[in-house]
């Protein structure tokens, strides 16, 4: 396994107590029986943790609620719908009617996902025209095809050609693979009346009605069924039109929940009213009403499978990229062969603005213009909560370490059972000084417990005052460097609890911070990595993926005082007489230090 650079993940508080650590968790069979009542140390390796952890860059922050907001706990609104290929904006009213894909001429290759271009079947594709939407400069003479310039796939391979170089989407929706046109409902009816079209091999098992063996495509069967049901429900015999069948069942109490459960399987249609209404519908009896007999003879497809072999079949992932195909008759033989793959119209995308779900304030809003990736508003959590940088610290056994301690080789493997040190640098982004309290379990959770000691779990970090401001205030006009130095000096002399800097003589001292700067503090964490020994006789003979990663769960509590703002929702803890508010923010995070040698 490749070495990693240390990282930090943060757990959004929204996934706390209410959902995590709930009773349903204790049922987990894979959880060791012991941790049933464990006092909820966050286990970064538990499968559920993956759903609540985010890198800091993914988190937003609500200034009014003073709370972290993650992608799970924001309310989203759509600013723009657009096609990622032609970058055209799509009005929201089109979505219902025309679906979620670009209806211009934007298609992806079913083989390699590359963009397809409209080319004349006769001429070679012109590279300058590739991917040009609604290709105005398309070749002069038809017929046309969609072709891929990367893998040379062409829609002619599935027998599809177009008469016109534009409006490809509309043309394609009327074509079946092989190029045969889909029948409209009207054509279908006319054709059925014409005896010459009638299949000679009429089914023997059928109900004998004409056309009962006719194959409908999915969209047509749906339409037929829908109009059939509608006509049934509109039957005057069904007094209420049958439409209100569920209206009289009020569900709000647990008792009626049980009724729900039985209705779910159709169990309580004993209900007189419901029975009468449902009774109003008879079953569909012919193709026009949506009845479709199944043709179970798949010998032709089996023969094709035999002759084309593995290469002729489409992989599961290619098939899953295929848009739903309404046009083909065989429901069960959905595309299977490469020769049945159709061009994929681009899925539309959205630009979204995000609101705090509690106070409804906007915390992220992109520019509406499709072409730009800028934001009008974006309150990233990184501007509000301290960031944590991690680097290995090697304390050479001798005396000659530099003031900051020499950095270990980044990404090197951790040796089992050999103590290692890491420097955590907390940087305060806000304009108030903050108090940070850390909590980490002495042993990491999981099958292999590494020992963890946070040497200084409590400290203060100075405000992120603008360096320039401070320089202006200072008549001597010192720059940042001198400023910082002076600050550090002041701190050292003050010698407050937790404010002590321990690296004066390069010794690790419990309760002392390692180094401090204008708005940052470094502390040291000592770890004794576990020995990743697999005992014989255990069920699992291997390490699970990432089980060799040394990850430390750490609870971070940040407290600060800020100017009180009027009445608002949020984590207001208390007020003092000067209208300063005490605020706090607490969350779990995960520090990934590195991999343990095994």
């Amino acid at each position, binding site marked *: 396994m490749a070495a990693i650079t240390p990282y930090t993940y943060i757990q959004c508080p929204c996934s706390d107590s209410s959902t995590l650590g709930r009773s349903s968790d204790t049922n987990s069979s894979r959880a060791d029986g012991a941790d049933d009542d464990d006092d909820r140390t966050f286990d970064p390796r538990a499968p559920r943790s993956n759903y609540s952890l985010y890198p800091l860059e993914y988190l937003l922050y609500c200034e009014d609620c003073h709370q972290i907001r993650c992608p*799970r706990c*924001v309310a989203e609104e759509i600013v723009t719908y657009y096609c990622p290929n032609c970058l055209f904006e799509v009005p929201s009213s089109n979505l219902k009617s025309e679906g*979620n894909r670009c209806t211009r001429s934007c298609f992806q290759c079913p083989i390699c996902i590359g963009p397809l271009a409209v080319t004349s079947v006769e001429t070679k594709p012109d590279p300058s025209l590739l991917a040009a939407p609604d290709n105005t400069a398309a070749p002069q003479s038809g017929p046309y095809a969609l072709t891929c310039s990367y893998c040379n796939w062409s829609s002619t391979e599935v027998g599809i050609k177009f008469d016109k170089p534009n409006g490809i989407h509309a043309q394609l929706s009327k074509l079946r693979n092989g190029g045969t046109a889909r029948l409209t409902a009207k054509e279908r009816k006319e054709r059925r009346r014409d005896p010459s079209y009638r299949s000679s091999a009429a089914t023997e098992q059928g109900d004998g009605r004409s056309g009962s063996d006719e194959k409908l495509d999915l969209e047509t069967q749906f339409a037929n069924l829908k109009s059939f049901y509608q006509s049934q429900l509109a039957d005057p015999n069904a007094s209420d039109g049958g439409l209100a069948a569920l209206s009289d069942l009020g569900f709000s109490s647990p008792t009626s929940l049980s*009724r729900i459960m039985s209705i*779910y399987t159709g169990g*309580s249609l004993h209900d007189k009213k419901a029975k009468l209404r449902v009774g109003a519908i008879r079953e569909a009896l012919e193709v026009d009403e949506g009845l479709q007999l199944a043709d179970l003879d*798949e010998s*032709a497809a089996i023969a094709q499978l035999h002759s084309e072999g593995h290469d002729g079949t489409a992989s599961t992932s290619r098939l899953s990229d295929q848009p739903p195909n309404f046009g083909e008759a065989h429901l069960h033989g959905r595309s299977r062969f490469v020769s049945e793959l159709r061009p994929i119209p681009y899925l539309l995308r959205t630009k979204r603005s995000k609101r705090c779900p509690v106070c409804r304030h906007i915390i992220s809003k992109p520019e509406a213009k499709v072409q730009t990736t800028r934001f009008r508003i974006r309150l990233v959590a990184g501007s509000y909560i301290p960031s944590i940088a991690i680097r290995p610290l090697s304390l050479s056994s001798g005396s000659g370490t530099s003031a900051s301690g020499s950095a270990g080789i980044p990404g090197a493997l951790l040796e089992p059972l050999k103590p290692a040190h890491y420097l955590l640098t907390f940087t305060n982004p806000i304009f108030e000084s903050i108090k940070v309290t850390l909590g980490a379990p002495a042993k990491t959770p999981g099958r292999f417990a590494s020992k963890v000691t946070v040497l200084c779990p409590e400290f203060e970090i100075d405000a992120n005052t603008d360096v320039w401001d401070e320089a202006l205030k200072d008549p001597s006009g010192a720059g940042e460097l001198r400023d910082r130095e002076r600050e550090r000096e002041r701190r050292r002399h003050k010698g407050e609890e937790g404010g002590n800097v321990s690296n004066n003589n390069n010794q690790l001292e419990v309760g002392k911070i390692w180094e401090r700067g204008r708005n940052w503090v470094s502390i040291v964490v000592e770890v004794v990595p576990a020995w990743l020994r697999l005992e014989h006789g255990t069920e699992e003979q291997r390490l699970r*993926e990432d089980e060799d990663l040394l990850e430390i769960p750490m609870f971070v509590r940040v407290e600060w005082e800020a100017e009180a703002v009027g009445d608002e929702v949020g984590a207001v803890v208390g007020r003092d007489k000067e209208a300063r508010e005490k605020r706090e923010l607490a969350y779990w995070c995960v520090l990934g230090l590195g991999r343990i040698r095994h």
Partner: protein
Amino acid sequence: MSAPTGSAPLPHRTVANIRSPPGAGHHQSGPSTPIRHIPSNFGSPSSLRADEEILIIEIGTRKLQVGFSGDPAPRGCVWFCPDQQRRVGDFRDWQTDYRYDWRSAAAGGLWGRDHELWQYDVRGVNLGLVGDKIERALGEAFTKYLLIDSRPRRMVWVLPSALPIPVLSAALDSVFSRFQSPTISLLSSPLALAVGAGVRSALVIDLGWSETVVTSVYEYREVDSKRSIRGGRMLVEHTHKLLAKNLPETQGGPDGKDKYVVSFEECSDITTRMVWCKPRPRSASGQPSSDALATVQEQDEGELEDRPVSRRTGSVTVPIRSWLSPTSLELPFDALAEPCEDAFFESQYSPTSFDDHELPLHLLVYRSLLQLPVDVRALCMSRIIFTGGCSNVLGLRGRIFDEVSHLIQERGWDPVRGKGVDQLRCNPKLRKRDARQAGDGPTGVMSPPGEGEEQDGVWHDAANMIPEIDFIDEQLQRATDRRPRVQGTLRPIESLGAWSGASLVTHLKALAIATIDREGWLQHGAAGASKPSDADYKTQRQSLGPGGLMRGSAAGSAWTLGVWGAT
């Protein structure tokens, strides 16, 4: 068409106001103005709800499908897979040198399990994780395929009817709390399939992933359901067996005991692409496979004429990448039908050697039909609907159908064609016999009370809860429906599928659907359930069939989610 202007902070959705006046909120085909959201209203709770656009969500063990009510097909499908279970910002799947460490996952018992949303045996299920998986998959589906914002929307879930309550409960918890849906309606997939086929009664053969379930639907009611663990998972396992057998023997794993030599992903892919099912052997003595295949080839001889000769050799080449080193296997085409044979039919054993829950599929279907009351059977057997992932295995549906019709020919249950039905109806003797069969037929339907349900947390015998007389409800015969119904012959029909059926049901408001109100759920749902010690343990390991929760509530007002309700 605007949302009701309630003053409550979150609108309390009773079922009564789900029903909007005809036309409201439901786009009929033809030109219609889309309902526009009025921005000025945004921020007031009543307008936070989205327009009357109902989401239909079909949830299965391996994938979920989403779309809008009234659409013929879902707009998107999301498969459950390991990369979906990673942390946000973990992009290792995009790194070219990264490969999923399936061997260690397999060693941890996860071969394939990490591609499942849930397991029916709830003892092994991390319920919270089920909720997380659903939430993430839905979120992805909504963003990628439906392009919807996060305003609360009503949902209809299409579910297998045997879904255990704890699993359903976890899913509801997650979605009610994360997506704020005012209501979630539940529809069982066999019912939706029947509607999607245009029939009121049907025999639904769901060739699913975890198991195969045969459900008899009579007059829009599930009256019986039988299951066998022979499903997609077993098929993939047998494909793996086939591949492993043909690969050179290797020392896998630290001590050479690795159970799996090829990754699940690859086996699953090969199964989907290459595994097929032989037709039923023509005669008991004849060589089944080559015989049948020869026929097939003969038919196609004309078309195949101009193909390269090499393609007509009897074998196919299957590339395998996840083995110790990438290789390719040359397999006889016939061999690729073996997994199907072993997984679904296993012809070398006699029927008596099978446990009920592992019946070969044709026996499962036959016994399902056998124990139905004759009227119900006559209707169901003429409306056979195949569904589920394995119905895509080429030849499988036809094979099951032929095997069943052969069984019927061979063993019969009495003439059911034409006049036979009437005869049977009038002949009290025959009828009695039939009832007996229904009662204590070969599968032992009437197992001692409680046993069926408790076996593995899955509720098994829907029909047993319903008194038999109830089946034949003449009142249900619609007076105006004088047209003859096809019955008594075996006949397969196509359904649009459960999703599309549900889309019809919801769009037309044609059936009563079970609807759960968010407020009610949050008050009385998982959190409101009483502690297990307070209630009768007998009621606990059940799923949602008739009598499932009902019994719990009959015992008093307390109902419980069983051991899963403990806090």
